[in-house]
């Protein structure tokens, strides 16, 4: 029987993967061919989705992007024997976009059936947890510290230190919470992993529970990700049945219960303390720190909070050792990051690479330039709170510290590419508008500052006292940076000021009504 892989990843579905799978099944039936369709995760080459793969004795052969109308032609060309076709790309793993990556966290994604625990085990799954169950909790923490893993959600705080804090507190009610509220535009790595390799996240969280002495865990997933929620809920049930979750995991003294909580469209809930409030069934209002959540977190108890990508990096760290992971990367940025090429990009997708790769390499070598074919003008790195970087900074290596030196941040590794038609004053205005819409309202600089920010930028664009208002905008940004409680208000000045400094010409255009006219439409 020939196995044919058609991804079930939401991005693949968004361009017709379900329909393609259905047509392949009916076409095979019509031709009396015995095939098995596996709904795998995505390989991350989203520009080729739906990417159909056929399993040949030596390798899987890729065809994409396949439309339902291409299917009959593929059968005629003999794609089930891996034969050539206009959409053929040869062996998937030999495609340069894929081959040149360093896949640690995403090693299995797109290869396995996300909900087959046998498949997961056959590809090295649960090796880390099996090992962790036999280790002393403090040794797990040490291994994570050795790996140099830093919070992949964007802040880059050393994961080992968080875990150590929770570990060192007296035994009792403790929690593990996974931040899967991936609200940043230009990021989809969390979603891809949850849909494509959910057991990896479950394994990472369970290792955290063993290390920290937690009994319960929550995965907080945004409501915009219904597919991820479904896959996770199913995966948790499967893991429970196989005793990789629940009571006395694999016959050990450790028990861990895992729940999925769905957000409700509030960007601020990606901030860790807002997320905790939200899991507790409250408004997602930011908490004051201290106390830090590691000490007083969910329901007031010690809590290990990490992003999906941080937890998902843990199984391989425990399995292969902290030093194995640490050997990737540069400076104090160790390991790999799942870069996400998004926006106006010809070959958008996920590129897992060690730190040190540059923006230029990512958008040119992998991304192939813009989708529109026009020159790249700006790239926003690290989500809506990340800086817009101009071409002059494209050679700065992806490294937390190097990026900080040029007033930018690596964040979650999302890159949103804009071509030369972008109006950076409009982007700066949007950053303030977004903050005004999504602010939780607890602190004044964020709540009021963002609204005033929109107004000031409007005046700048309209050429009303431009120089005075530019000075006012800078002053406002300083207040927001220094006075906000969390990253929402604190980092909104990043995109605003980077647009102003990197692209000042857009704030000095002669036609005063260009945006107002646009807004009036």
């Amino acid at each position: 029987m020939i196995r044919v892989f058609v991804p079930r990843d939401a991005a693949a579905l968004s361009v017709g993967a379900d329909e393609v799978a259905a047509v392949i099944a009916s076409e095979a039936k019509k031709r009396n061919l015995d095939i098995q369709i596996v709904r795998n995760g995505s390989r991350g080459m989203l520009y080729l989705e739906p990417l159909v793969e056929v399993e040949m004795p030596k390798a899987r052969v890729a065809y994409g992007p396949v439309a339902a109308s291409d299917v009959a032609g593929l059968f005629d060309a003999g794609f089930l024997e891996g034969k050539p076709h206009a959409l053929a790309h040869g062996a998937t793993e030999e495609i340069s976009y894929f081959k040149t990556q360093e896949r640690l966290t995403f090693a299995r994604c797109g290869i396995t059936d996300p909900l087959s625990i046998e498949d997961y085990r056959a590809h090295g799954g649960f090796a880390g947890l099996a090992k962790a169950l036999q280790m002393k909790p403090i040794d797990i923490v040490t291994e994570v510290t050795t790996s140099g893993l830093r919070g992949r959600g964007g802040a880059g705080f050393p994961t080992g230190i968080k875990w150590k804090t929770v570990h060192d507190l007296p035994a009792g009610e403790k929690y593990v919470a996974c931040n899967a509220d991936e609200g940043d535009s230009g990021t989809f790595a969390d979603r891809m992993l949850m849909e494509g390799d959910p057991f990896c996240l479950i394994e990472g969280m369970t290792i955290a529970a063993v290390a920290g002495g937690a009994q319960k865990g929550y995965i907080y997933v945004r409501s915009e990700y219904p597919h991820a929620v479904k896959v996770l809920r199913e995966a948790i049930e499967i893991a429970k049945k196989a005793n990789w979750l629940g009571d006395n995991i694999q016959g050990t003294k450790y028990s861990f219960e895992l729940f999925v909580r769905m957000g409700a469209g509030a960007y601020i809930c990606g901030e860790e303390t807002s997320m905790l409030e939200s899991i507790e069934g409250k408004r997602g209002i930011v908490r004051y720190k201290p106390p830090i959540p590691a000490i007083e977190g969910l329901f007031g108890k010690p809590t290990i909070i990490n992003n999906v990508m941080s937890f998902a990096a843990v199984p391989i760290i425990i399995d292969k050792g902290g030093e194995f992971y640490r050997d990737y990367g540069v400076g104090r940025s160790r390991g790999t990051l799942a870069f996400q090429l998004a926006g106006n990009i010809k070959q958008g997708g996920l590129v897992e690479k060690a730190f040190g790769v540059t923006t230029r390499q990512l958008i040119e070598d992998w991304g192939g330039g813009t989708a529109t074919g026009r020159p790249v003008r700006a790239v926003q790195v690290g989500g809506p709170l990340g800086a817009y970087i101009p071409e002059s900074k494209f050679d700065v290596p992806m490294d937390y510290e190097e990026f900080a030196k040029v007033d930018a941040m690596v964040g979650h590794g999302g890159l949103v590419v804009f071509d030369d038609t972008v109006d950076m004053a409009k982007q700066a205005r949007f950053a303030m508008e977004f903050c005004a819409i999504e602010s939780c309202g607890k602190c004044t600089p964020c709540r009021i500052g963002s609204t005033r920010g929109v107004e000031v930028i409007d005046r700048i664009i309209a050429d009303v006292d431009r120089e005075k208002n530019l000075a006012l905008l800078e002053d406002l940004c300083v207040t927001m940076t220094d006075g906000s409680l969390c990253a929402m208000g604190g980092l909104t000045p990043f995109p605003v000021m980077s647009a102003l400094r990197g692209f000042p010409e857009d704030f000095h255009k002669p036609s005063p009504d260009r945006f107002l006219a646009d807004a009036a439409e």
Partner: protein
Amino acid sequence: MAKKAGNKPNGSMTDPTPALTPVEVAAMSVCARHGNKPDELLEIFHELQHQLGYVPDATLPVIAKALNRSRAEIYGVLTFYHEYKRHPVGKHVIKICRAEACQSMGTDTLCRHAEQSLKTKLGDTTADGMVTIEQVFCLGNCALSPAVMVGETLYGKVDPKRFDEIIGSLEKEAAE
């Protein structure tokens, strides 16, 4: 207690509380299914909205009582989150992503097109009650921008033409 209950069999004769409306009953049973646990409030709202299409104000006192929280708290949570609707919406809710990645691929044009072709505004429902369009910030499909979600179905690379096709398929579905 036992004596009092005995005096008022089922509470039906003397209890001035009017019978619960179907919406209130729905709220009560959803809360019960979640063990009347306050920390499950978001899930309770999700489920109610799934059942009723929105979360009617009439459910709030019922939920407050079931979860032993104040009405103000329940109201506060409901109104904090963009996802929850307090009023009936169209048969289909179409979310159009307006975040940066989609901006770089022309979501502004798409939004204007949607508003013009459906003769409504973002956040509003068409006159025939078929479609509500709303803005969202990021659907996690940023490599295939602009992204649109209809119910729970995600669409990528949605230009005005593809948007019209999606609307067309919804209309066709309704006609059948």
